């Protein structure tokens, strides 16, 4: 089987293989339609979601050296476009949020531009590049907002050192249309609404709900370490979250992600420290 796959890889162009793989998910998309959240709140309906379940913001520009470059501008445009498509989406109880089914295919025809993306473990240029910042944010919001993540793909690289990181390493999710998706279920008995937008150079995301939650969530990491794999540095950790009831009693403590990524910087002094939650 592996030899057939290897032969197909060498003969069939990458773009054709990619489209075949995308088509393979088509029938699944058709039958699962009733379970997917697709309604967006009208502007006057947004006031019905006054309670904040989770909020996070992340800077659009991480490396000042990239300011004003084509890739950075493309990324900012793509993030604004994707967050606009997600803003106001209502996820009813027990429905599934799917990143790709909401944002759709990132094509030039739909207004996406070239941006920085990671492909096969290497930084590269691609249409819709940079949208992972949106999916990273959604994954973190889902963890903190009490959503149940049913599909998530981790990044294979750790791009930046921790000095400006406010969340544990590995609290992100990569997406690639349409087979590497980020999906979460709303397990709560009331609907929630996603609110995303760009403000003052930051991507700001919220999950809001109709009713106040009777629990709090704490996201934390365990077993964080750097290790050597040949010449490369590898970073590993496990992300967990803990739910507490109103009286502080632990309702559930669960592992939500197990990360392992190649480090693209010299870990230096960061080798022994994990980032705070």
């Amino acid at each position, binding site marked *: 089987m592996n030899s057939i796959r290897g032969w197909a890889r060498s003969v069939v162009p990458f773009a054709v293989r990619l489209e075949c793989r995308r088509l393979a998910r088509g029938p699944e998309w058709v039958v699962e339609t009733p*379970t997917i959240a697709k309604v967006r709140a009208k502007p006057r309906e947004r006031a019905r979601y006054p309670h904040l379940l989770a909020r996070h913001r992340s800077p659009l520009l991480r490396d000042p050296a990239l300011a004003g470059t084509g890739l950075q501008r493309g990324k900012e445009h793509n993030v604004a476009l994707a967050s606009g498509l997600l803003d106001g989406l209502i996820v009813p*109880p*027990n429905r599934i949020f799917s990143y790709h089914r909401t944002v759709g295919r990132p094509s030039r025809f739909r207004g996406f531009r070239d941006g920085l993306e990671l492909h096969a473990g290497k930084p590269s240029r691609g249409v819709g590049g940079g949208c992972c910042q949106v999916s990273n944010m959604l994954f973190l919001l889902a963890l903190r907002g009490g959503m149940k993540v049913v599909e998530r793909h981790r990044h294979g690289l750790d791009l930046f050192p921790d000095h400006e990181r406010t969340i544990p390493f590995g609290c992100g999710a990569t997406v690639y249309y349409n087979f590497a998706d980020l999906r979460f279920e709303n397990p*709560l008995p009331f609907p929630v609404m996603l609110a995303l937008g760009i403000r003052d150079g930051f991507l700001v995301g919220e999950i809001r709900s109709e009713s106040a939650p009777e629990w709090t969530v704490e996201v934390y990491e365990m077993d964080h370490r750097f290790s050597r794999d040949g010449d490369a540095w590898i970073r590993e950790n496990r992300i967990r979250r803990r739910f507490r*009831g109103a009286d502080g009693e632990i309702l*559930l403590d*669960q592992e939500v992600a197990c990360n392992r990524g190649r480090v693209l910087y010299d870990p230096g002094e960061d080798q022994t420290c994990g980032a705070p939650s």
Partner: protein
Amino acid sequence: MWRALMKGAILAGFGRFPGGTRLYRHLTRERMGTQATHVDKLRRVWPGYVGVWEGHGTLRMEGLRVWVHEAGWTPYAPLINYLLTGSGGILTNVEGRLLDKYLSRAVNGSLGTALPPERFPRGRRRRVEGLRWCMRVEDALREIGAEVHQDVNPASLPLPSSSVDLCHSGGTLEHYRPGRLRGFLAECFRILRPGGVASHVFDHRDHLFHADARWPFLAHFALPGPVYELLCGHPLGYHNRLLPTEVERLFEEAGFERIVVRRMILPGREYVEEKAALRGKQGLSRMLLAPRFRPATDEDLRTAAAHYLYRKPAAAQD
């Protein structure tokens, strides 16, 4: 009318095709999430069951050992058992598979069941609330001490004799062929403790009625046996078409003592006892009945579903 026929044709298409039953269940239960409405239905009917068990069955739910047969694809039954009794109880599945995707819906459904709040002690409620975030249904069931047996043979169940107080099933046994039903009732008798209660709900309606309410609800009584076998004798369509009086006879043959048989009549969907069933709408004109069903009583022809509540005699030997 066409919707009912279409549903019948689709079910026959899948049911007659090798592997079609499995594919149909995979598409509908696992992909389309059709069992979500089953949780809503259970949440609606369970308070009524509890009322019957406590009223007619004189059972006290707290600490009761409850066994639910063929609870389907959702873990609603063990969760509500835990909230009411303190233990997830026992679950046996023949066709059904508990699926992770219905866990949080079942949690929300069980917590939202319309029973007085004092029926769910605070500690149990908190524990169940935490389970909505579990990724695997097995982990959740382990937390509440539920015992699950999947792929069981209903005529030979892996449960010890005289080990449960209450056995319940809903909308399941009408799909068993009469021989299999006899075998299951014998097992039910063996597994119940003396004095234990068997509570089984049979949906006597032609199930195509669920696709189109204009379809006569006992339309399947119009077909002679061989024709019915030809059209509906596949795993997705089979209904044993036993009349309520025939079902009562099977319970008695198994050794049970009758407590009460509550019949659901249409159009009001109310449960009544004995002769009050005559108030209900008739499921099919007598002129259209196949010969086998002509001796049916008027009550039988007006019964859409029935809740059979029987007791294993206190002095019974296994």
